[in-house]
């Protein structure tokens, strides 16, 4: 009965949302801000990937908030899951194929991850995507050899350090009389690797932070034992 009522309301919600969104002409939305940014970005920011320009430039504080959320989630998860007991039962190590595969994949993924991060201002991809790949790279060995202890201290240093770099880069601009997170260095030539001012640096910080955060999260989830209350 309750489910039936809920279904009716779900149907109602679908209908209402359809009614609402059908009133918009598809692909005709006013692009007030978007157009402005498209005109402004190449000269102001100098990043070929305008999404990156938005993420790190125009909406840089969003990104700061976002890595803070990841940090908060990771800290909260750490708080919730707690420290692992040393005598806890561990998973059996992975098989030979897994282990050698990991050994092979690990450097490859590192390279790919950093490549994606560092080309974030030029091509699709950037700190988030690259960070995820880095996280996967660090998580894979754990899957293969569960008995290896996770270096949470190292991870938290990377987390904190990368976050601090992001903020300090922003503060540097503030100290020079600009606004917080104002791009600092010269824009350089559009489309080159070393261009777009401090954007690559910021994206590197984001990538490292995201990578460390997610790796830590996965390691904790893989590591936790449930029976302990």
């Amino acid at each position: 009965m309750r489910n039936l009522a809920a279904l009716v309301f779900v149907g109602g919600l679908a209908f209402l949302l359809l009614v609402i969104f059908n009133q918009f002409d598809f692909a005709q939305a006013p692009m007030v801000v978007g157009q402005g940014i498209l005109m402004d970005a190449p000269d102001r920011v100098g990043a070929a990937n305008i999404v990156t320009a938005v993420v790190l430039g125009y909406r840089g504080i969003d990104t700061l908030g976002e890595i803070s959320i990841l940090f908060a989630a990771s800290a909260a998860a750490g708080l919730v899951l707690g420290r692992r007991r040393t005598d806890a039962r561990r998973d059996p190590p992975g098989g030979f194929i897994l282990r050698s595969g990991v050994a092979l994949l690990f450097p490859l993924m590192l390279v790919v991850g950093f490549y994606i991060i560092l080309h974030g201002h030029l091509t699709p991809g950037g700190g988030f995507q690259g960070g995820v790949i880095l996280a996967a790279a660090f998580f894979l060995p754990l899957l293969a050899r569960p008995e290896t202890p996770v270096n949470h201290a190292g991870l938290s240093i990377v987390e904190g350090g990368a976050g601090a770099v992001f903020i300090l880069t922003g503060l540097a601009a503030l100290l020079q009389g600009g606004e917080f997170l104002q791009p600092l260095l010269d824009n350089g030539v559009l489309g080159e690797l070393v261009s777009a001012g401090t954007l690559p640096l910021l994206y590197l910080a984001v990538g490292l932070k995201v990578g460390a955060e997610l790796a830590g999260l996965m390691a904790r989830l893989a590591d936790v034992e449930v029976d302990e209350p």
Partner: protein
Amino acid sequence: MMPIEVGTVLYAGAIGLVVVGIAGIVLSHHLFRIILALVIAEAGANLLLVLSGFRWEAIAPIITGGDAVQTMVDPVPQAMVLTSIVIGVGVQALALSLTLRAYGAYKTLDIRELQRRMSADLAGEAGTPLPQSLEEPVGGRPLPAAEGDGR
């Protein structure tokens, strides 16, 4: 009859994801499914945002060299969705950690059962025990003794 437009299909897809997600949250009682449903609903909302920046005949907002000015799609919603996706995964990880711990404490993954056991736990801690289930009257049934043992 009007031909179905791509826009309608896409909006329907996005709304469908949102609604399926919400339906999952509301209808499902299994914590794990609820978290999955939350992920789906968020994905739908993300799609909605991306749709709001779409333009026909436009290219992705990346300058590929050559200074021919081409129309591009709106980069702002894309940036927002990037943010939103990462937020989503953080929340999801936290939710799963909490689920693990809640399961560890109460040995159930049913959200209703979890609520019951938690309320009983909280009430017991506070020294205000909940009344027993109202379906069963308190105390034994005052039935006449059965034939066999009525000696």
